[in-house]
């Protein structure tokens, strides 16, 4: 059960349809205790729907999932007792104060009275709201609100946390603080699935799950994804004019992808065509002046652009 060595979150063929529209399509995912998994994907990809199924808020139309060892359909209330959830929209009570919100959720989660005071202080410190316990929550700025919401969601010390875009609309400094909290929790072996639109945040995760058009298209550590998922060598190629170079490379043998990045091109070379050394000559022959091609590490953004483009092409085919 929840304390066994099994995964903290396990989804098998998890699917959700709204009428004829499939929002999540046969998703498989296993998350180990203490792992931080980032959930990345374009708008409408199905991130929230997946998180809601795992939080027992939506009933899957196919497949199954276990969270903290409990089945999300048959043992929904056990799941609810073992998770902390932050929904995509801010959902504390704005007309209640910081202290009143904490007291309410402590009551709802049945935090033993003996422990409440310590946890309340912890949550307030975590949110950086010392001295503002009596402020109405509606008067707080975004970063404080979100940290307080996290504080409320962990009052019962759940082993699993589902955070749906907890940092959207929050300034960069507050986002950094929030991720510090996430890692502190992970260090306590709390399992965390967190969705985000920010690519830089993906780097903070142990693993990344990329979801696009209701399908899970990639799953792995940031390093693995960068190395493996591109399926070729990424090169930076200084050249001018960029537009002509791009047009020329589009049809070149072995060039899988080419895109403008600032004053240079990023070119993805597949095996069996042009090599990195061939590129300057190839371009010069077509009236483009070019420097030497230099292999670079792909950013996660490169990887996602590549994966989503590939997934789109596959979907069209």
């Amino acid at each position, binding site marked *: 059960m929840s304390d066994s060595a099994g995964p903290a979150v396990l989804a098998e063929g998890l699917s959700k349809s*709204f009428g004829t529209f499939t929002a999540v399509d046969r998703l498989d995912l296993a998350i180990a205790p203490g792992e931080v998994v980032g959930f990345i994907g374009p708008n409408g990809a199905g991130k929230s729907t997946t998180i*809601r199924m795992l*939080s*027992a*808020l*939506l*009933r899957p139309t196919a497949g199954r999932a276990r969270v903290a060892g409990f089945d999300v359909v048959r043992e*929904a*209330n056990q799941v*609810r*007792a*073992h*998770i902390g*959830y*932050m*929904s995509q*929209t*801010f*959902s*504390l*009570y*704005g*007309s*209640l104060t910081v202290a*009143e919100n904490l*007291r*309410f*959720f*402590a*009551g*709802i*989660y*049945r*935090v*033993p009275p003996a*422990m409440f005071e*310590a*946890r309340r*202080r*912890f949550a307030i*410190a*975590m949110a*950086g709201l010392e001295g503002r316990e009596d402020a109405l929550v509606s008067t707080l700025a975004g970063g404080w609100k979100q940290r307080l919401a996290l504080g409320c969601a962990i009052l*019962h*010390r*759940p*082993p699993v946390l589902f955070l749906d875009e907890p940092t959207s609309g929050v300034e960069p400094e507050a986002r950094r603080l929030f991720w510090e909290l996430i890692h*502190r929790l992970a260090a*306590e072996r709390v399992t965390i699935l967190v969705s985000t639109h920010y690519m830089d945040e993906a780097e903070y995760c142990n693993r990344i799950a990329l979801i696009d058009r209701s399908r899970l298209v990639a799953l792995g550590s940031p390093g693995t994804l960068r190395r493996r998922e591109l399926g070729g060598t990424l090169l930076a190629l200084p050249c001018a004019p960029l537009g002509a170079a791009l047009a020329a490379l589009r049809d070149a043998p072995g060039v899988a992808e080419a895109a403008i990045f600032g004053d240079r091109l990023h070119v993805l070379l597949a095996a069996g065509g042009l090599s990195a050394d061939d590129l300057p000559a190839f371009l010069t022959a077509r009236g483009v002046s070019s420097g030497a091609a230099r292999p670079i590490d792909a950013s996660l953004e490169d990887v996602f652009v590549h994966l989503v483009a590939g997934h789109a092409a596959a979907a069209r085919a």
Partner: protein
Amino acid sequence: MSSCIWLPATRPRRGRDAVSPGRLLAIAFKEILQVWRDPRSLAIALLMPLMQMVMLGYGVSLDIRHVPLCVFDQENSQTSRAVAQRFVAAGWFAASARLGSDQAVHEAMDRAACIGAAVIPADFSRRLDSTGGSPLQIVFDATDANTTNIAIGYAQGVVALISNQLEARWAAAHGGPATRAGMVDLEPRVWFNEGLESRYFIIPGVVAVILALVGAQLTSLTVSREWERGTMEQLISTPVTPFEVMAGKLLPYFLIGIFDAAFCLLAARFWFAVPFRGDFATLLITTALFLIVVLAIGYLISVRVRSQLGASQVALLVTMLPTTLLSGYTFPIDQMPAPIRALSLMVYPRYFVTILRAVFLKGSGLAGLIGPVLGLVAYAVVVLWLAGRAFHKRLD
């Protein structure tokens, strides 16, 4: 934050969906804070009963003038014509026709040419002269019970005036006061609405309408507000049970409802001076029952209609429409067509209006009200059952 006090995860108790008083009270307390800080809810809870009590309470006693009155003067003597004239002179009645037969009276009332007809008997002045008193009949069409009530009051006033004058004349002629108090006995006969009482009859109905209105309005906002503000998604992600949500949300409004009921009933008793002949326990128990019904109806609507505006409008519809039309607050049930009478059995305010009138005016206790009380109990059970089942901890 200096020290991280990350306590080991406490294992939530395994009790399967057992009701937790702590969770229930957490919701109730939060709800009170929300109402207290929400001007709209606060206005409904505290101002609406006051305003409605004034509006509806005085609405029934609006100053109505020139009530069309027909006269069927069977005697047609100088005295009888003078009496008929008195009704018009006071300004309360407008003489619309002099009629010559019972048949004509019926027809005039059917045509709504008049809503009252004074019938002066053929031996009016003879009886006055010989015995010092005579009956005077006024027939009222009580389709509009409010107007009729008021018109009866006016008629009584006019007749008292006439009596006084006749008494003075009789005393002068006979050299002593009349032996009987009141020279002219008014016999108000109320058609279509036999046995109509005074406006005491209406005020208890007003109280029922206000409680239904306010109660359902308050709870109609409670769940829809959480859906609208997004807090519901958070709430249902916790182990809270549907029963705790319902009970926790109804409890504070029940207390507010009792407060409003006390206000309205005290106003009925002391401001509108409706006599109270019943006992307090019966009043409290039946009022609590009625509140449970209306609060649960509002809650049920709130669960079903997820917007505050929509929920409050539906609540208005299902409370105002049946209470005003069918509860017998304006239209006495006995006078309704049979199918509508059957329908009104389904309408909860009917029971409470019946109970309130009986407790106030007749002094009935629980035992004497077993029918309507059981009606309310049945209603409460059904509505609570529906409300308890309506709430699901799922988004789909």
